[in-house]
């Protein structure tokens, strides 16, 4: 038993509580609490990542989770719900990514100038929810934490959002995400009922279902419910149009957290729940998913090519990248699925970086229309260079983590779905190149435009607000930190979130085994379980033994 994960989840939630108790006009203190909490949880997440031991794979027995902590919550004859957290190779990388993004998102939130208290409260809830979702092993708590993280999105877009399409975007994102969550919930309840073990604990479910699989009928209903329910939360084609719109209207931190972290929870659930528990559903639905992912990669890529707003372009490209994850899932191979998890981590960092940078540009120039921008590389050297690197990572440049994931997905899918891989390679190499370079060309290159003529980066503007100055002890602390962060330190501080995200992308890009060695063992089990078709079926379909070495745990 280890309390590490529980501590990690509770730090942002407790901080949210503290923020709730601080008066709303202590803006700097509120910000400091939020930053401190996300920084501490980043430290804890790094500790967990380092502590995690790569696991081997043994087909004869199920893998164990590490750093488990289990507290019984409801125990009865008919229902058992436990607070149960733990990590394996799939979630550990996501957890680290979530912590990095949460810290970066909090750091760039200085753009919020009204209602800071509520904003940071929601942001911290979101962070805690995201951590909880990736750690929970009981599906009840997974769902709870996921919703805890999702709901603040709607409020944040509605209140602090921007642009003329704000309300429409809020409609759309609420509609789609609620629909997806509902489908998934129905699927989970059906799973609970048909598994008949009176528990939603993933460990119990896996044990029970690997001995006695769900009936074919149940699988063929539950699997698509989970696949499309969670798929909608990710932006699976053709349910993707909420994402770019919603992110374009969202405040920077929300877009970073949602596109980077929360979206991955849907993919995570598909890999964690749908694949290993329902092999027949996998066999039936993967061809469909393989076709839909072309929609993501190619179609959304084309849509991205047409965008005139930078955030819409980033949003569509982000949906396009999700196609690679779906392709990895559809490949059902160790290589492809590992690649999918690598992309989930990499894209989380990348999406956060893209929205963080575009948010900065929006705040300094007041627009994200690409034909009004230009020449920013000269005006904002740091932001400009970071943006070039970010867009290059977005079109799959080696050296950044995204390439490794995409490459693994294509390799893994090549033997099963070669035709799809041809589309994926075209989308990943050519189409993404077209829109990313177009963005660089019109935003960063070229001569400066009227809007960008006079902008600079990291200019210190506002003095300390008077309301905070005269509050005795707290005011003194505030003033101290404010002056300490002045000048050069202040500049470094503003650069830190971007530098951190970039550094992580490059680190995992150059040393992919940091991730893959951890992911491998856990994914191997998923692949093994997802290929386990029930014995009767296996003999009926193919007289030869199943292609994978399934050392028998089935009856």
């Amino acid at each position, binding site marked *: 038993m280890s309390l590490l994960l529980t501590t990690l989840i509770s730090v942002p939630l407790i901080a949210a509580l503290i923020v709730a108790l601080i008066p709303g006009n202590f803006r700097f203190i509120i910000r400091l609490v939020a930053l401190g909490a996300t920084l501490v949880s980043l430290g804890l997440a790094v500790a967990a990542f380092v502590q995690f031991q790569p696991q081997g794979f043994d087909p004869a027995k199920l893998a164990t989770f590490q750093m488990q902590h289990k507290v019984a919550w409801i125990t009865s004859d008919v229902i058992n719900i436990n607070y149960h957290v733990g990590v394996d190779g799939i979630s550990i990388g996501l957890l680290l990514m979530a912590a990095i993004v949460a810290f970066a998102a909090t750091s760039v939130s200085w753009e919020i100038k009204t209602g800071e208290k509520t904003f940071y409260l929601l942001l911290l809830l979101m962070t805690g929810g995201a951590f909880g979702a990736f750690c929970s092993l009981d599906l009840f708590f997974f769902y709870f934490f996921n919703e805890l993280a999702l709901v603040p999105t709607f409020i944040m877009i509605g209140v602090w959002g921007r642009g003329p399409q704000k309300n429409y975007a809020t409609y759309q994102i609420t509609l*789609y995400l609620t629909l997806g969550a509902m489908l998934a919930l129905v699927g989970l309840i059906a799973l609970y009922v048909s598994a008949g073990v009176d528990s939603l604990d993933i460990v119990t479910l896996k044990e029970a279902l690997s001995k006695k699989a769900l009936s074919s009928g149940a699988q063929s209903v539950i699997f698509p419910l989970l696949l499309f329910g969670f798929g909608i939360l990710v932006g699976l084609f053709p349910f993707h*149009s909420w994402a770019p719109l919603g992110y374009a209207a969202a405040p920077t931190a929300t877009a970073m957290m949602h596109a980077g972290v929360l979206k991955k929870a849907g993919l995570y659930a598909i890999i964690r729940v749908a694949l290993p528990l329902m092999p027949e559903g996998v066999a039936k639905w993967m061809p469909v998913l393989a076709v839909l992912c072309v929609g993501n990669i190619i179609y959304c890529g084309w849509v991205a090519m047409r965008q005139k707003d930078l955030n819409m372009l980033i949003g569509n490209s982000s949906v396009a990248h999700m196609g690679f994850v779906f392709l990895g899932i559809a490949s059902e191979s160790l290589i492809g699925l590992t690649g999918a998890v690598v992309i989930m981590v990499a894209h989380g960092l990348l999406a956060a970086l893209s929205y963080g940078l575009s948010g900065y540009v929006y705040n300094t120039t007041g627009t994200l229309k690409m034909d009004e921008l230009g020449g920013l590389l000269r005006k904002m050297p740091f932001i400009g260079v970071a943006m070039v690197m970010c867009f290059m990572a977005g079109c799959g440049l080696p050296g950044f983590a995204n390439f490794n994931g995409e490459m693994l997905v294509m390799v893994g899918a090549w033997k099963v779905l070669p035709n799809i891989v041809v589309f994926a390679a075209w989308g990943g*190499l050519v189409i993404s190149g077209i829109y990313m370079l177009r963005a660089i060309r019109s935003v960063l290159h070229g001569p400066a435009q009227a809007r960008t003529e006079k902008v600079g980066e990291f200019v210190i503007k506002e003095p300390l607000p008077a309301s905070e100055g005269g509050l005795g002890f707290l005011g003194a602390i505030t003033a101290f930190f404010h002056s300490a962060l002045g000048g050069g330190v202040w500049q470094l501080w503003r650069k830190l979130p971007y530098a951190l995200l970039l550094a992580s992308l490059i680190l995992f890009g150059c040393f992919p085994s940091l991730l893959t060695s951890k992911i491998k063992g856990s994914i191997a089990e998923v692949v093994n379980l997802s290929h386990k078709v029930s014995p009767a079926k296996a003999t009926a379909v193919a007289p030869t033994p199943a292609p994978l070495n399934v050392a028998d745990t089935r009856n």
Partner: protein
Amino acid sequence: MNPELLPWIILLLPLTSAVVITLFTRGSKGLSAGISIGAIATAFVASIILFAKTGGGSLLGPLLNLEWINLQELKLGDEHNFIINFGFKIDALSQLMLLIVTGVGTAIHVFSWGYMHEDRSVPRYFASLSLFCFSMLGIVLANNLMMMFIFWELVGVSSYLLIGFWFEKPSAADAAKKAFLTNRIGDFGFMLGILMVWGLVGTMSFDGIAAALAKNPAALGTMGTVAGLLIFCGAMGKSAQFPLHVWLPDAMEGPTPVSALIHAATMVAAGVFLLCRVFVVFTPDALTVIGWIGAITALIAALMAVQQNDIKRILAYSTLSQLGYMVMAVGTGGVVLGQGPSAAMYHLTTHAFFKAMLFLGAGSVIHACHHEQDIWQMGGLKKKMPVTYWTFLIGTLALAGVPPFSGFYSKDAILAAALEANKGWFVIAALVALLTTFYMSRLFIVAFLGKPRSESAEHAHESPGIMSFPLIALAIPSVLAGVFGINHLLDHQFGVEGHGSHGPVAELFAPFGHSPFAAIFGVLAVVFGVSFAFALYGNAEKDPLPKTLGLFARAMARRFYFDEIWSFLIRITHEALSYVADFIDRWLVSGLMVRGTHGSFEIAGRALRLLQSGNIQTYALLFVAGLVVVLLIVLK
């Protein structure tokens, strides 16, 4: 010192330089330039030491093959087996390339400091240059296809950064974008080729592929030709082969030393290097296609070069044409059994020296003439810039293939191979040799001889020592590379029954003994080319060709309209499709579905609101109506 460390030093020094400059020395021009020059020069020394220690042979060792990604889980089944190493393949081929890249690179780095020192972004320039060297050395050293692809992409991006160095100039920014995207189209094929080879053979390492094919020559099966041609797509992008050649002339928007290093000597040669590296993969059919693509590129590019007036563009088209020559030479390797692509590598080597020198010479001229690039605005530079004049002359003679300059020997090797392989290729090769001599003489006569035609040419003066020294340094191998015996090193690499070197003097006359017909044709092409050029341009004030050739000359000047064809193709495919996709997204998916859902709920809400008006009479009416309906149903 352990020789296994040398490749690591060679590879990582430029990377370190790029990182250090970006992070720490952005403020200092001199320091940044010093770090970058120091890194590449040290890498050059290390390459020489490596060559000396191994005698140009191969080197193996545990440090040269580190694991990068390991996704092997044999308990799941044999197909879950995927390991990529970060490894180096050290043999004659890679060592020769190492010497070229670091050697030519050093000269160009030094020249750059002279050429660029007034620019405000010198640190960024040298950081990008170092990044490029790192990527290029990675391609050279890679021991498997994936590693090669990774550095391949990195080379693409460093070239993008350098072409777009003056990114505020729209033409430079556009050229950079075009270069990157054109390369990406080639890389799309390359990626699929890698996947296909991996799918068929089960490994990505060059040694593994060669071993599998040696054991079972039919291992690639019927898809072998397709796989080979897909890999060739990558080479078509980087080495700018028809029809992906359109990016190279535009790439001249970059600073001139960049054109010398990247778009003449190294990056564009990477495609040819790739073909030599994976030569075993190509089936005879694939090689025939490769040979024809090369021949077509060589011919059309040479024709285009005849009607260009920009000094850098002439050299750019000439590079295209020579690259086509090399690719064609790779093609001959399949027909002439047991020959391998050594002629291609040979020409790559000599070409790297003299073409880099020609570009640097052009840079020196441009520098002296206050950034004038039109040759018709020059003239009479012979007396004003003696060092540039003499080195440019050497380069021209070498490129034209005049014995005993290096170009003659490598070109002769290609002519001889073409003669043996395919008569059509030989005719094209001879014609291209004639055209090459013609346009190079035209350039030389117009720019250097005669009288100055403009103010800036009038006041031109020799460039400073830091720029003329690299020119001289490159002139030496341009003259002598033909008699070093590089071809024997390469013959050994590709397992050709070598004749062995008989010393420099014998080498001097070897072509005439080996394949006299080809050698004589080569010399005749030179003689005719020079005579035509002197006849037309000896005293010309402007180009007489557009008048005599009419429409054809215009087509040549407009590059046979390939750019227009490409942009038309892109417009009718991707632009149109993206328009349709965007339309569907905007109006059908989000419009109809979302607004539809939203709207239907709203209508339902409004309808229901009518029922709940709060009016007692309405409720009573509805109550009675309901009662009537119920009674009707019950009593019926």
